[in-house]
Structure formats: C-alpha cells, structure tokens
C-alpha cells in the first residue's frame, strides 16, 4: 500500500523526523483561511508530480483559490488530484536524498543517500554514480553507528546527532511498519536544521495480518479523499489476481506469471493483440477462475479469451469448475480457448468434456486459435 505524502508525514512526526507544519485541503472543503506563503502540494500516489505542475507556491500576490482550483483540476498520470497538502515554506540551504528499501538482488535492506536529492535523482544517479551511496543493512543487526558515520561523512553532514536520529527513525519506521520503502526526497538542510520536504512510504500488503488496525485506518483516510473505485484497490485482498489492461482484442488468463508473459510473447509472435491480461497468482480456486474470467470478459473490446492453465499447485478440477460456472452465468458469447494440463488434469478434462467445451493440450495450438478467432471477429 502506497501512502500519501500527508500520511507518511504523520508517521514521520510520530518518530521525531522534522516536517513542515501544514494542513490538508480536501476537494470538498471550500474557502479555508490561508496565510501566505504556502507550498501547495497535490496529494497523488503516482510519481512525477513536480514535473506535472502538481506543486505550487502561493506567495500571497495572487488569489490562493485560483491556484487551488487549478490543482484540483489536474490529472497526474491518470490520477485525479483530490487533496492538497498546504505547508509552511522553509529556506533550503541544501537538499539530500535519503531512503531505506530492499535491495532485491541481494535480499537485504539498503540505506541509500545522495548528495543532491530532488526530482532528478534517478537521472543524476545514472550520470554521476559516485554521488549515490548504498549501505547494506543486516536485518538482524539493524543499522549500525559506523554505517551512519560513513554516510554522514560522505554527505558532509555538520549536525551528526540530528542526522543519526533521522536515519534511525527512518529504519525504525521501515521495520515497525513492515514498509518496503521509506523515502525522504529531498531531506532539506535549513537554517533551523533538517526538514523532510517529502515523504514516500510504501507498506507491504503481505504484512497486513500483523497490522490490521493500521491498514484499516490508512484505508479509511484514503477513502475519505478518493473515489470509491480507486480506494477499492487498497482494500484487503482475498485473492492474488494481477490485472493489466491493454489495447488489443484478446483476453488472456494464466495461472503463472512466467507462462503468462510467455503467452503474451507468443500472441505477439503470431500477430495477435492483447486486450487485457489476468494472472491468477498464488491463490487459485474455482472462485478465482470465475472472477478472472468475469474481469477479462467485462472489457468490451475482447473478441476471444485465451485461458492458459498448467497446474502445479493449481488444480484443474477447481479450474474446470470455475469455467463451468462462468459459462452458466455468461450472457454473451465470447469464444474461449482453454489450454489445460497439470495437477488433476484428468478430472478437469473430464468435466470440460461433459460440458462439451474443447480444451487443448498444446499451448501453441490454443494461442493460434485464439489469435485467429480474434482476427475473424
């Protein structure tokens, strides 16, 4: 679960990381009393907000409500602005980049600092590798004093004690919230000390069982400012379905990420175009099969559906049951091409045969047929 800046900063405050004072303006609020100067920041979960004009400074010389209305009119990378965080303006002497996340290749937490920070951090990392420092953290030891001393030296930090406390706090949040990312970009050095100008906190949905209360609270906050449909995405998931929408005419369902990607490549090779792709993930049963079919079929541009099943964990008897339910419920006639093999395939195939639904054993044939049908329709 990605948190909004204002949510991340609430956590920062709790852990003693200095942030600007400020307040949230909702789309539903009208006409708050504002005193300049203020930094007005669109609250969105996507990146690139600054470059998209989502951050404005109001110095009092113009009408604040004009700026605010402009921001609420914005859509940044497909996400509508529904809330604005209004913050006191601070004098920035220097900006640095600071985050803790996982280095996935090495399976270890990593502290990342950069001597510059700001919007172009990736680009500057690419161009001047020497300005970014990575410190691997042993998850059993936590972050050690000498590691903090190391980055403080590299960044030329004067106020070591304050810096150390911020890094320790960031790691504590990372750990205690089961975060996958805690990022301060930029961390500003101001005449009054450090200030976290931005806050990016991503929580691990997989850890929800340890943080039910927290997740519910954060979700309620999100629902308050979001459309219901968007908020829905961060609701507790009972399944592990991944759904991606594309622009072609073939609907694809797979019971594995690898075979799913492979199927997309094959469709591409045979000249087909994918409308949407649904990978059922780790938890597969007849309900998940049914739900996936419904998701894929609900897209009006879908002309044929390709279901690629090669069960290891996944049981073909369960899958067949889901497909049969879908066939019963479906009120339009989309051709479905099913490749079915693997665990319990005898039972699954038997069920399909009884219902007179053809299944294929060869992936190539199933893909070719689905592509051909979509082209015909």
């Amino acid at each position, binding site marked *: 679960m990605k948190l909004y800046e204002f949510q991340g900063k609430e956590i920062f405050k709790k852990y003693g990381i200095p942030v600007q004072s400020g307040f949230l303006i909702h789309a539903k609020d009208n006409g708050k009393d504002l005193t300049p100067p203020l930094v007005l920041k669109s609250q969105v979960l996507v990146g690139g907000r600054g470059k998209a004009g989502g951050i404005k400074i109001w110095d009092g010389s113009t009408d604040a409500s004009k700026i605010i209305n402009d921001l609420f009119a914005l859509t940044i990378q497909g996400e509508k602005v529904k809330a604005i965080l209004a913050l006191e303006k601070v004098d920035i002497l220097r900006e640095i980049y600071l985050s803790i996340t996982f*280095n996935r290749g090495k399976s270890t937490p990593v502290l990342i600092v950069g001597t510059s920070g700001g919007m172009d951090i990736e680009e500057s990392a690419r161009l001047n590798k020497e300005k970014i420092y990575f410190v691997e953290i042993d998850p059993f030891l936590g972050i050690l004093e000498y590691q903090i001393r190391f980055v403080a030296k590299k960044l030329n930090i004067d106020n070591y004690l304050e810096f150390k406390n911020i890094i320790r706090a960031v790691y504590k949040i990372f750990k205690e919230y089961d975060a996958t990312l805690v990022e301060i970009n930029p961390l500003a050095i101001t005449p009054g000390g450090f200030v976290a100008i931005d806050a990016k906190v991503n929580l691990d949905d997989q850890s929800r069982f340890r943080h039910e209360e927290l997740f519910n609270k954060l979700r309620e906050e999100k629902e308050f400012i979001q459309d219901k449909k968007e908020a829905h995405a961060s609701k507790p998931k009972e399944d592990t379905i991944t759904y991606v929408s594309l622009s072609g005419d073939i609907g694809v369902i797979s019971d594995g990420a690898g075979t799913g990607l492979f199927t997309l490549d094959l469709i591409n*090779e045979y000249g087909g175009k994918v409308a949407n792709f649904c990978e059922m993930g780790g938890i597969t049963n007849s309900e998940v099969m049914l739900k996936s079919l419904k998701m894929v079929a609900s897209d009006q541009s879908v002309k044929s559906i390709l279901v690629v099943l090669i069960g290891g964990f996944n049981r073909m008897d369960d899958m067949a049951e889901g497909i049969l339910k879908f066939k019963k419920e479906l009120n339009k006639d989309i051709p479905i091409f099913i490749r079915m093999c693997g665990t319990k395939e005898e039972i699954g195939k038997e069920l399909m045969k009884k219902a007179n639904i053809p299944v294929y054993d060869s992936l190539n044939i199933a893909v070719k047929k689905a592509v051909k049908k979509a082209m015909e329709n």
Partner: protein
Amino acid sequence: MSILINKNTKVLVLGITGKSGRLQTEIMKRYGTNIVAGVTPGKGGKEVEGVPVYDFVKEAVNNHEIDVAISFVPPPYAKDSCIEVTENSIKFLVLTTEQIPEHDVVQIIKYAENKGARILGPGSAGLISPGKCKLGVHPPNMYKEGHIGVVSKSGALSYEVGKTLTENGIGQSTVVAIGGGPFWGLTQLNIIKLFQEDDDTKMIVLLGEIGGTMEEETAKFIKKEVDKPVISLIVGSSAPKGKSLGHAGAIIEGDLGTAKSKINALREAGAYIAKNHMDIVEQIRKIEGK
C-alpha cells in the same frame, strides 16, 4: 546423477496437514519421493498418507533421518517454520509459500545464509529429477529422465518447457523453479553452478523473465565459469512496462531489468537465445547432432 536431490533423499514436509500439503504429499509419494515425516503444530501424532506427523521439527529429526524439507506453511508462520528447520540442521529447504512479508523473507534468507543452509524459494514450485525424486509441485507426467538441466524463475514456465522437451523426446537431469521473486534464496547462478558441476547434465536451459537484475548477473557467471551449452528463453519482451518501484528501485536497477538488457547480456556470455519453447528443442537437437 542430478542436483540437490536424488533417489535416496529423505524428505520432511512442513504444513503436511493443510490442503496443498496433503495433496502434494500424496502426489510426491506416488512419484516415489521418500517422504519420511511431516510437521504441523498441534497435529502431532496424526498421519497423512501413512506419513507420521509431529508438532516440532526437532521431534521429526529425532525420530527420522532427514536430508531436506519442503514447506507448505501459510505466510504468517513461514519465518518461524523456516528458522526452526534451519536451526535443526536441515541444510536444504524448498519454500513453496508465496506472499510472505518482505521483512520476513529477508530474515529467512539471511538466517539460512548464516547457517550455511540452502533455501529454494520463497514461492518456488520446487524441483524434480525425473525418475529419481520430485520435491515440489511439478506435474510428474511432463518430465522424463535425461541430461538437460532446466532452471526457471516461474514454476509454470518450467512445466511448460519440461512438457515440450519431454513431448519431443528430450529428457531432463533436474528441473528447478527458483520462485518468481523479488527475493530468492538459491539464484539462477547457484543452480547453474550445480549443473556445471553435475556429470549428468550435458546442457543447461535458463528460463528468465523481465524485471530485476538476476539474469544479468547470471550471464557474467556463465561467461566466466560455464562451459556447458546454455540455451536461454527470456519471456516478457512484449509485456507493458511494469509499475515503477519509485526512485529507490530505479536507482538500484538503473537501465537493467528489460528483456533487451537480459538477452544482450546472455548472448554476450555465449548463451543461445531461443525465440520460444520450440526453438529450445531445435537448438538442443542441433547441439546433440554435432
């Protein structure tokens, strides 16, 4: 020969009384895997498919000789269970569980590393040495004994390729699914190293996916240390660009992680890049023909 497991491997099943644990135990046993014990807390004293169930790994270890373990334990209990296994000196664990909190996964992997234990997974479909031992969920009928070592991130893709090879008369020494990531105990590199050292493996098939930088690192290793033919299929070329991991992810990965980057690295390392599964078969035949 084969890697990691063989005919005599004695297996402990964790979470043996759950739905998946029970079914897969049955299938593995039928295949001939020597499952000697199972563990589920609170179910000690029961039996599953004739296999005795214990409350603790220690009890299982005290009562049976055990070489390896395979876990079907649900995510909230996975970390505890993995450490219990490692703590009891079992040096190889197949961890099939998906959706384990990332902080737990990192500790599981680090702890095994500290203790010199191997973990395949998390989210691994396991491995199969056809005709000898099946430790995981690979559908048995898709494999036959032979000399091709297959390593895959994805379980399903390893079945797909196993099936294609078998249907074309090409057998496998061992087929290994390391898990879909983003965290791994044993990596492609680790498995390929074992294949390189395994007398019974003549060629290596590497099935990779977009994302992460593992294939790039594997390629470096292949270039330096592998003299057996490597045939690679990287899937996901036509996939839409994935969601950003934020600044931190982009900083770590830089330009790596695309199909192109992986294919280039592997080609540069001397691997044959297959267009699809059928192309793997053709390339193997070509090499064998020499």
